[in-house]
Each structure stands twice: as structure tokens, then as C-alpha cells.
């Protein structure tokens, strides 16, 4: 289970307008790499950019509803929870996102190690 991180730094990523639907964007911040998605519904989802199976690059996966399929071996990952779908197991970190009035997307990076999955 995911425990909510207490402390989050919000960093400015890209503009909401400039993000293509259902196409992952790679965001690097310090040591972390995030795959940011704008779903067809308009919702944003951000997850760790490496598949727990063999580190497939998730930003490059096919997005269907709120799942992304890993481009490497097709593991199906639930974007809101980061959980790999059965029969496979595992999970990826998820990140909070928010959009300001200007339409800029921010991604929340936890400052503590608490955001395990």
C-alpha cells in the first residue's frame, strides 16, 4: 500500500496545453524519472518511469483508460495506484500532480522516503 508522503516539493513540469493526450512525457528531477500522462478524460497521472518487471520505460507505453501497458513485456499498470495488474505483481511509485491557474503542471516529489509502494 501507498502511504501518503508528509512532505512534498512541488516542481514545475510542463504546461497542460502542451501535453498530448495519452502520450507519456518523460520528466527528470534529481535522481527520479517520472512518466507524466494526460488521460483522455483530461486527468493527469504521474508514475515512476520504470516498470518493476525489467525496467521498461513506461512513458512509452500504450495508454488505455487509466492503465498503461509496459512497452517491453506488456505488463498492465494501473496509473492511479501504480499497481501492476494480475496475474503479474509489483507496483511503481505514484506522484501527485496539480495544475495552477496558468495551466502549468506541477509534480509533487516526496522529500522523505515514506512514499513506498
Amino acid at each position, binding site marked *: 500500500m501507498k502511504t501518503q508522503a508528509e512532505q512534498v516539493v512541488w516542481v514545475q513540469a510542463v504546461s497542460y496545453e502542451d501535453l498530448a*493526450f495519452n*502520450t507519456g512525457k518523460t*520528466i527528470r528531477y534529481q535522481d527520479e524519472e517520472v512518466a507524466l500522462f494526460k488521460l483522455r478524460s483530461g486527468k493527469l497521472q504521474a508514475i515512476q518511469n520504470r516498470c518493476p518487471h525489467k*525496467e521498461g*520505460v513506461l512513458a512509452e*507505453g*500504450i495508454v*488505455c*483508460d487509466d492503465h498503461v501497458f509496459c512497452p517491453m513485456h506488456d505488463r498492465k499498470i494501473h496509473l492511479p495506484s501504480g499497481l501492476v495488474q494480475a496475474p503479474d505483481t509489483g507496483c511503481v511509485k505514484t506522484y501527485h500532480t496539480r495544475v495552477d491557474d496558468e495551466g502549468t503542471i506541477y509534480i509533487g516529489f516526496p522529500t522523505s522516503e515514506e512514499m513506498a509502494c
Partner: protein
Amino acid sequence: MTVKKEKLVLVGNGMAGVNAVEHLLKLAPDKYEVTIFGSEPHPNYNRILLSYVLSGDSKVEDIVIHPYEWYATNNITLYTNQTVTSIDTVTQTVTSDKGLTVSYDKLILATGSNPFMIPLPGADKEGVMAYRTIRDCEIMIESAKKYKKAIVIGGGLLGLEAARGFLNLGMKVDVVHIVDTIMERQLDRTASKMLQAALEEQGIHFLLEKQSAEIIGDKRVTGLKFKDGTVAEADLIVMAVGIRPNVALAKEAGVECNPGIIVNDYLQTNVPNVFAVGECAMHRGIAYGLVAPLYEQGAVLAKHLAGVETGPYEGSILYTKLKVSGVDVFSGGQFVDAEGTKAIRIHDEFTGVYKKVVIKENKIIGAVLFGDTADGTRLMQMIREETDISGMSKTSILTDSGGGSGGAASGVADMKNDAIICGCNGVTKGTICSAIRDQGLTTVDEVKNCTTASRSCGGCKPLVSDLLAFTLGDSYDKNAAKETICGCTTHTRDEVVAAIRDKGLSNVREVMNVMAWKNEEGCSKCRPALNYYLGMISPETYKDDSTSRFVNERMHANIQKDGTYSVVPRIYGGVTNPTELKRIAEVAEQFNVPTVKFTGGQRLDLLGVKKEDLTAMWEALDMPSGYAYGKALRTVKTCVGETFCRFGTGDSMAVGIELEKRFERLNTPAKVKLAVSGCPRNCAESGIKDLGVVSVDGGWELYAGGNGGVKVRVGDLLATVKTEQEIIEYTEAYLQYYRETGKYGERTSEWVHRVGIEHVREVVMNEEERKQLCERMDKALSVTQDPWKQAIDSKKIQRDLYEVVEIK
């Protein structure tokens, strides 16, 4: 409530023991406090799949059955890397090599077996080993990096899988076997010889009727000497000559063994409260060495320990399947001819298929299948159920893999709920049926995804299909269900294509809406397929949906396993010039490309490029995309032909270049490779291409549906034509017909096999049809554009697909 739990100790963290515990936990979750000891430093893993780890198809972490969390969640105390060294059956305790003593109320011994090592002189040298554990597997993989030549002693199942693994690891390998047929305990002579030929084709070398005498070398082995005086070189020797039940611990404690731990029908030993299961156990005189029977034993033991009523374990009928890609072998029951038996045989030397079913008193008692093993599980079922076949037509027993003759589906009906359907993963009939019912599954794939049945070797697929038929009744249409595009829909490819045409559907989401897809946005299987069908049907109006393309096709570069990309510029017909070469070299330098490789299709592959560098690199290259990534025309391989070759009669280079220029960028159901050879010597290997062209006396031969990939297939002669113009015309018609009737993902080799070469020939030869196909091909080609150029010209494409945002 304080009901005191009984203490259950399991010695041996392997497949049989842990499976029994798993069952037990389901039946009586609160009855026992479980402790498990295992000598190996791993959680429970699937030993069967080691061969896939060795061959590089799986990684160690892929074959773990129960990860550490499983033990934790089920409150099991697990001691890995710890060997139980003594049992005190009076005080009921076990003690480990680390000095830990644990008491038990019930004890299960599941210590498996030890590989048998022939006591040859020199067997203690470095580089002589067994093949049993993850550790062995790792040593073999490590050795392959340093050493070049392996010998496997033993031509049985295990030895052959090891040998295949060595080939994959890039080593040369000899298989030494004492008699003149391999897998002689599972195969009859005909099948054995066919298997040998198939494996020789793959590169395994056999030394049959050879008795090993001595292992030679100083510290490390350098070779193997035989009784006949000959010597074979080796820097690694694996013995795969059999196993011995691992009973030292049991014997020491006074548990009766001969040679395995003697158990009764409830897996009890002669010592109270001590049970044995798995390869270490000997039941009615038999110690089993395969997983399926061990799981059957485990199921009985679990019920017994749970206090649930259960019938006795009465022994198992064995079956085996060799896990080597490219060869399908199955054998089960008693398959050798004997007095009072009759056999049905099918032996098709053209397709390399051999099937034999042994019958005694109107019952099938054994079978051997080579080349086509689809019937295996069904036949096993008939053997187990002792189906009376007197009413069946003899040949239909073999060829009817469907329900027919009241056979299969009713076969599964009679099976008990705890019968194992999938031996690799130990999935029972009950589990599968309730998953089908509770989760509304309708296809084999869905069952696979939900229950893992048929996920490993796939041998049980036909049975899973029968279970679907049995559980869903008439609503399950075997053929239709197999054919649906994916689990999101009940529609077949043909139905979808017809609907797109008839209803004029114009985009992926519309198809899903109109055809009542179960998932609103589909999945990674149907989305790319629909995108292809839509584009194929309306090339001029359909707007390609990049979000429905796999990463390679969306990015127009091949993603590599480390997340970098490779760039392959088009080199028409494999012919280039110094200017082009220089440019490629310069770009490779400019972008620090770590590896430049010639591909199998005569082009240069620039490997290890970062995604954010791709567009700049293409701009600098200023060459068209080679489509090395697409379900599209890849390359046209050519030989040097009449221009340079002393045998050449046709201008293979010119024809190849012309074909490549004509069909580059064409979307097809699966990748398409072409080749042109200047004479029947066929140096461009035209026989194993989707379309191969060969210059012959007075014209050209066209070969269709060849493939050099996983399943090698030699192309069929499609047509013989006179002129180069005709080559183009026939190729257009052929490829367009494939585009229109092929399933997405289906290579021409599979497609030609499915629809029949005669049919394709008829279509292509028919002048009127050919003309129309060519016209439609013309349309499809008229709108293509080079994707690299598009990316260079479009800031939006660059931003959407290739940009990486670095913060700070």
C-alpha cells in the same frame, strides 16, 4: 479464542512441499503454524522454468512462485539457506546446520532429489557440474562468458534442454548419450530420430552410443575421453544422467527408504506424524521426477493434514513435453508397442509430423507426438479417464482436437475438481472453472491471465479451452473465442473489418463504441490492430492514431532494453556509396553512438541513442527512415547478381532497389522482408523471406510466405514471371492481398499457411483481381510520407514524442 495451533514443519522449500502447504493453507488456514526450511538461498521457485532462464527467455525473478511476501502474509516462518541435518522422531524436533531446533506436531519431508554424478575419474575437476538449481544455472551462464565448448552427458529431457541453453549462450555443445536414440525413455525410435534431426539442425551435436571413461584436464576439465579411446574437447561438462531421491536425512532418522522414502496412499511414512512428498518419496514402488504427479500427491497430503475427506493417491500417469523452442515433442503413458497393443500412426515426412497412439483393449494407454503436439493434453485425458474408444473412428482420435466424438469436453466433465490442468503452474480444474464463472471469463487468454494456467509451456491450452466449453456451455464458441481480437471484444478480426467497411467507421474509438467494446479504450492488443485495419481500409482518409501504436512505430526508432533507441537509415537494396557511409559515420561520431552494427538485412544500425537526440540525429543523417521497427516493409536483401557475380543471370541489385523504393513505408499486418537473388544459388536467402525473388533461366521465380525467424518456413513458389515489371506487379498484388486479409500481427508465413498457397496463387494469377489489388496498393502507397522528415519539420511532434523535461 485461544485454540492452540499445531506445528507443521516442512523440510525442503521446493515445488512439491510448498505446493502442498499452499493447498493446506487454503483448506485450513488456521490449523497450523508453519515453518519451512530450505537449503537454497531463494524463496520457492519453479524449477521447470530453469531451462528458460538458461536459454535466456526468463530471468531468475520471473520464475519465483512464492515471493518472500507470500510467506509473510501467510505467517509462515521461512529459513532459507539452512539445511535440516537431523530429525528426532521421539521428541519430534528437527535441527538445522545452523544449530536451530524446532519442534513439530507434523513433519513433511520434501527434500527432492540429488542429481546423479557418474563417478568417472576426473569428475572432481573444475567445470564438471550438475543441472538442478538456480545456482547451477548461474554457473552455466557465467561459464559461457569465458568458455566456448560444453559437453552434456545424457540425452534425456534435462540434457537436451541444457544443451539448447548452451547454444543460446553462444557455446558449442555435444550431447553424449549411451544408446543410439535420445530421450529413449519417452520416445519411440521414429520420434527420437526426428527429434535428433531437428536438434542437429539447431546446432546441437550428438555423440551417440558413447560410453564416457574419463574426464581429462589439469585443474579444469579440457575434454572427455570415451571407452573407445576417442576424445571430445570440453571446457564445461554437465551431467544430466538421472536423479536419486534425497533421503540421507530421513534414513538417518530411521524413516524407511528403498530407495526413496516409502509412503502409503496418504503420503505417510512408517514413522508417526512424518510425511513425505515429491521426488524424495517412493509410492507403490515409483519415485516420480515430474511436477504434475508431485502436485497430485501434494493435494492428497494437504487434504489429509487439513482433516478434509480425501480419496487415496493412487499413482499418476506420466507425460512429458520438451521445452525447446522450435521442436514440439510430447509423450505420455505407455507408448512402446507391446503384446496385445495396437497403434495408430501418422507419419508425414513432408511436414515433419509424427503421431502415434497406443491402444490396448479399446483404451488408449500411451501416445507420442512429434511436430504437432496439440492433441497431447486431450490424449492424456483419454488415457487417464480410460475412455472407451471402440465407437470412435480410429483416425479421428488423432486429428480431432475439438470436441467431436463426445470426447474432449465430456472428458473434462468427468475430471475431479482438484485435477491438475496446468502442470507447470499447478492450476486445478476447480480453480479454472470458478474463475471462469466468477469473473466472467470467455477466452483462453483471459483464463491464462487470471489463473496463470497455460502460461508456462502452453501444453494445457486445449484443456483450458475444453473447460471453457464445459463451463460456459453453448455460449462458448471455441473457434470464435479463439479468434477474437483480444479480451476487450467478442468480435473476430473479420467481423471488425466488415463493420468498419459496412458502417464506414472512421476511428479507433468509434469502432470500440459501435462494436460494444468491454473496455472503453481497449488494450495494447486491439488498439494497434484497429489502427492498422482502419488505415488499410481507408488509406487516403484515415488519420493514423499514434497513441494506438507501439513505442517503436510511434517513435520511428527501436526502443532497446535499456530505454535507449536505435536508428537505422534506409539503404535501398543494401547498396550504398562512400558519401552515404561517411555521413552515417560522422553522425555516429557527432552523437556519440556507442555501437554501430550491420543488421541482418544489410543495413547499419546505430544503437544506444537517447530519445531526446533522435530528431537532431535524423536531421543530420538526412536519409529516409529504414523502418527497422515497423509492421511494414523492412528491407530488401540482395546479392551482387549479374553485375559482379560469375553465376548471376539477373540484376538482383537493381530489382531489389526498385522493390524497396516501391514499397518503403507500406504498413502491413506484420513486418515484411524481401530478398532478390541473381541466380538459383540464392545467396540473398530468398527462400525464407515474406517474398523472395530468384532469377532463373529466362525469368524470375517468386516465393511467398517464407520466414527465417522463430518458426522457420520455406516459401512456396507463388509465380514465375518474365519481366522485372511483372515482379513489381505480382508483388503488389500479393502484398495488398496480404494486407487486406491478414490478421494484425500475422506474418505472411502464418497467413499463407492459413489461407493456402493455392488460394493466394489463384488470386494473384487472376488478371482482373491482380489489377484491382495493384490499384488499391497504389492508393495505399500514394499517401505515405517519411516519418523522420515529418518529425524534423514539426515542433509539435518533437515536443509530444521526443522531448524530455529536465528539471533543475
